[in-house]
Each structure stands twice: as structure tokens, then as C-alpha cells.
């Protein structure tokens, strides 16, 4: 298990040293900042209008609820574009440079390799999240009040969603020989999963419930509202474990594939 951390550290540092890592880090921060700015501005406009009693119904709408709930939903869409960029590197890159061959001859178990590579990405994802927390002191400094529940639960939900997407990307990367193929395939799969939410919305009959249960966004949506539901947490845990398991199996295919 200690060796998994060594692998994770190597992958994490390799993200930091690559232009793609820096790009993802910077651009994600920029996008997050832009969304936050737009949402705050919208909130300011609406609440100004509300104070002039044009919209008395929004008076009770809190800043946290309005800004952060939408913020996390917007970020979940941004994630669709960034996850493939991160995960395409993990296995496909090592395959291209044939370094995976070296890793397999080191005293490491397949599990340590998969878990280490996954952990390295999760750490990087957490590093992406870190600067977005700067919005919290900013709101307090500007005189706003934070309703901690939705913010903390929102972050938890976003972390669960992100790590689940990463596990899917890891699996796709482990079965593709090429980074571009890996990124495209991951992106396509993520978009498909994202669209399941809409599909479930227009479907009727017994299958609607099934599709809706599969759609990650359906499970994610309640977190930014501050609702902590165990079933959603369990869903994301299963999602992640399922794809980690598939990745492990994919790595083991070298034993019988030429």
C-alpha cells in the first residue's frame, strides 16, 4: 500500500510538471471564477430588484442557496471537459512511452498500480478544487453570510462526482493505446451519462426509474442544495469502485492478450 502512494506521488508530480496539468489547473480556476462572478452579479441584480419590491418572492432567497447551488451545478458541466484531459494521461501515456512495461516488472501488485494511478489523479483534482474555496472568504469579506451546510455538502458532492468521473476515465485510459482516443472516449461516455438525466426526464413507465437511478447528475443534484442523502453517497461509491475494478481487470488482460 505504501508503494501505491509512491506511484500516486509520481503521477501527481508528473501532472504538475506537464503543460496539460498547468492548463487544466489554470483554466478550471478561470472558469470557476467566471461562473462565480456571473452568479454573484445575477444575485446582486435580482436582490436589488427585490429590495425595490418588484419581486417580493425572492426576498427570502439566500446568497448561499442562489449562488453556490448554481455554482456547483455549473462546475459539474465544466468537469465533463476537464476529466478526459486528466485521465487520458494516466495509462495511455505510460503505454505510449512503454513505461508501463517497466512498472509491471517492479515489485508492485496490479492493485497498487491502479490504486496509485487513481490516487494521483484524485490528488490533482483536489488541487483543482482548492483555489475555488477562495470564494468563501471573499463572500464573507464582502459582507455576505455563508450558510455552511450547502457549501460543505456541495463540495462533498462535487468531490464524489469528480472522483467517480476520474475512475471512469481511468478505466477508459487503461483500455486505450492512445491519449486522443482515451480522451474522446471518456468525453463521449461522460456526455452520455450526463444526458441520461434528460432522457430520464422525458421517459415514462418502469424504465424511467431505472434510467434515472443510473444518471449521475440525478444523484449529484441534491448535494449543492445541502441535502445529504446516504443513497447518493452509496451510488457514487459503487460507481467509483465499479470502474476501479474494471481498470484492474483491464490491467490484468496483459496476461492473456498478446
Amino acid at each position, binding site marked *: 500500500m505504501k508503494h501505491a502512494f*509512491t506511484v500516486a506521488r*509520481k503521477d501527481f508530480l*508528473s501532472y504538475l510538471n*506537464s503543460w496539460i496539468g498547468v492548463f487544466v489547473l489554470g483554466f478550471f480556476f478561470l472558469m470557476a471564477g467566471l461562473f462565480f462572478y456571473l452568479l454573484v452579479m445575477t444575485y446582486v441584480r435580482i436582490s436589488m430588484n427585490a429590495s425595490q419590491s418588484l419581486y417580493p418572492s425572492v426576498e427570502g432567497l439566500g446568497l448561499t442557496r442562489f449562488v453556490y447551488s448554481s455554482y456547483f451545478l455549473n462546475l459539474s458541466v465544466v468537469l465533463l471537459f476537464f476529466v478526459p484531459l486528466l485521465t487520458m494521461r494516466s495509462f495511455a501515456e505510460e503505454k505510449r*512511452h512503454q513505461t508501463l512495461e517497466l512498472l509491471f*516488472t*517492479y*515489485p*508492485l*501488485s496490479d492493485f497498487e498500480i491502479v490504486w496509485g494511478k487513481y490516487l494521483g489523479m484524485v490528488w490533482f483534482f483536489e488541487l483543482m478544487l482548492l483555489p475555488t474555496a477562495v470564494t468563501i472568504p471573499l463572500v464573507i469579506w464582502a459582507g455576505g453570510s455563508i450558510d455552511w451546510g450547502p457549501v460543505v455538502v456541495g463540495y462533498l458532492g462535487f468531490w464524489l462526482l469528480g472522483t467517480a468521473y476520474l475512475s471512469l476515465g481511468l478505466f477508459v485510459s487503461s483500455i486505450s493505446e492512445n491519449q486522443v482516443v482515451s480522451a474522446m472516449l471518456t468525453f463521449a461516455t461522460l456526455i452520455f451519462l450526463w444526458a441520461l438525466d434528460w432522457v430520464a426526464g422525458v421517459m415514462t413507465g418502469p424504465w424511467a426509474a431505472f434510467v434515472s437511478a443510473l444518471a449521475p447528475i440525478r444523484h449529484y443534484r441534491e448535494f449543492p442544495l445541502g441535502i445529504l442523502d446516504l443513497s447518493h453517497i452509496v451510488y457514487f461509491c459503487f460507481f467509483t469502485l465499479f470502474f476501479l475494478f474494471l481498470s484492474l481487470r483491464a490491467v490484468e488482460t496483459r496476461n492473456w492478450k498478446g
Partner: protein
Amino acid sequence: MDSRVSKTLVRPPEAPVMVRVENISKRFGRLTALDSISFEIRQGEILGFLGPNGAGKTTAIRILTGFFPPGDGKVWIAGQDLFKDPRGGKRHIGYMPESVSLYDDMKVSEFLDFSACIKSVPRKTRAVHVREKTARCGLDSVRNRLIGQLSKGFRQRVGLAQSLIGDPDVLFLDEPTNGLDPQQIIEIRTLIRELGKESTLILCTHILPEVSMVCDRVLILNGGKLVASGTTEELEATLREQQEIYVTMGDRHRAEEGLAVLSGFPGAEQVRIVQEKNDQVYFSLFVSKGRDLRSEISRAFVERNLPLLEIRSVRLSLEEIFMKIVIREDAAS
């Protein structure tokens, strides 16, 4: 035990067996990449691993380095079953891949430190250990450079250095001098020979002169089968039906006399004059295997007062041995 195993026991038995391979086979779908191969390598041996492309060399190396398990059979490294406890077994292995397969975005020191972590070099001695291997492979000047920016020669050394980390008992070197200039080739070969004094070494290469220069013993694979195993001399002896002898004589005016003497020996065939040059005559003749006429020839020349300058039996080069074995096996199958 299988007869194939006993056939390969050519080393004196005092050195312990470091690598033991018993009847390993590997199939990919319908293709049989390796067909029941057995051999042993003793401590301190430098073994050359040869075979034409597609002979199963890569598959064999991949199995021996723990990349994947064989379909059938067993591998013991330093007395440990490699696939019963892959992590423990792999600790005894150092593998130098072909030069391309390194982490280009890591610094040399970072990469070697990573290897040392994975290979469980104790934290206290890790820095010293890495330093030592860095110096040994002549990498001191590029310690802090990115591997991706290094020249091929240095990359090769990085590959070698990481294989040495953890002081493994068995080293596998895959095309260690591939793409190097002559100066670098000589340096790497010297390093390999030095390493061979301490650990068991398996050299996988297609440069045959390198094998005959460096290796104690040769294994030749063809079509997934082990077709030959032994020292270059042993392989040569099994191949040769006839031995060719060259004789050089000093006085060209007595060439006919010399020819008559050589032809007079029982068992001498195809006696001929190869060349006459600078008052020297060069003869060539064949004798059947196991018969050495050299002392008789020299005696006969001296008795007749013929000026004998040189007499030698022609050796087969490893290239010729390799070609003959591979062609013979291809013809047989």
C-alpha cells in the same frame, strides 16, 4: 526431471542456481509463443539470449521479469517461485528496458529515487544508494536533468542505473547497446562485464559479436522452442561435421610439393591452394569432425624441410552458428 533441463547443465555445479525455468509455455489465442522451455542460470553467469524476430524472445523475457505469468510451467528466481509471490520474486530482478521506455518528464534523480522507493530500499540508506548507482553509471553530470532531454547514451545509462537499484540478484538487459555510438558501446560493455562479476546477467540482443564478447553461455530460441544452449565452443562443436584447416607456407616454388604432402594425409579432403602471394602459399583442407591433423601436418612439413609459417583451424563465428542452427531447425519443422 525433463531431459531438456539436464542437457543445459553445462556449468560446474558449485555456483547456486539463480534462475530456474521449468517447462514454461505461453499461448496467445491460437499462436504458441513459447513451447515448453526449460533452462537454468547459475550465479555469476552472463547469458546471451538470442533468436530471430518472433522467436518468443520478448515473451520469454516478459515472463522472466514478471510482466505476465506463463500459461504453463514455473519460474524460480533466487529460489523463490516468481508467480506464487510476484512482489517478493520481483525484488530479485533488475530489468533494463529498451531506451525509449523511461519517464521523460522526470529528472534522473527523481526517477531513480522513485525506483528505490518502489524497490523498498530503506529510507535511511536510500539517498546513498541512489548516489552510488548514479556514480557507477556515470550519471553524475546529468542528475538534475529531465530524462526526456538526455542523449541516447545517457538514457541507456539511466535504464541501467534503475535496474541496479535495490541490488538485484538477476539482471535482464534488453538491447543495452542499441543505437549507441562506438565509444558509448565500449563503455556500456565494460560496465556490463563488471556487473557480470557480481550478479547473474541475461543479455537480450541481436548484436551477435556482442554476445560472443560478453557472454559465457548462449540460449537460442526459434519458433517458441529452445533450440540450442551452451558456450559458443560447444555449439560450434555440435554443428560442425567437418573442420577446416588453413596452412601457410613460405616458399611459393615448392607449392606443388606442399599440396602433395597435404593430400597424402588420410582423411584430408578438398585440399587446395587458396592463394599465392608475396612468396607465400595459402592452403585449405577439410578433415572430418573430431580428427585434428595439425600436429601431423607440422611434423610432415618439418621433415621435408618445407617452411611452415602458420597452421590454424577455422572457427565458426557466432553469426554462422546462429544461422546454421536456425536454418536447421526451420528445415526440421
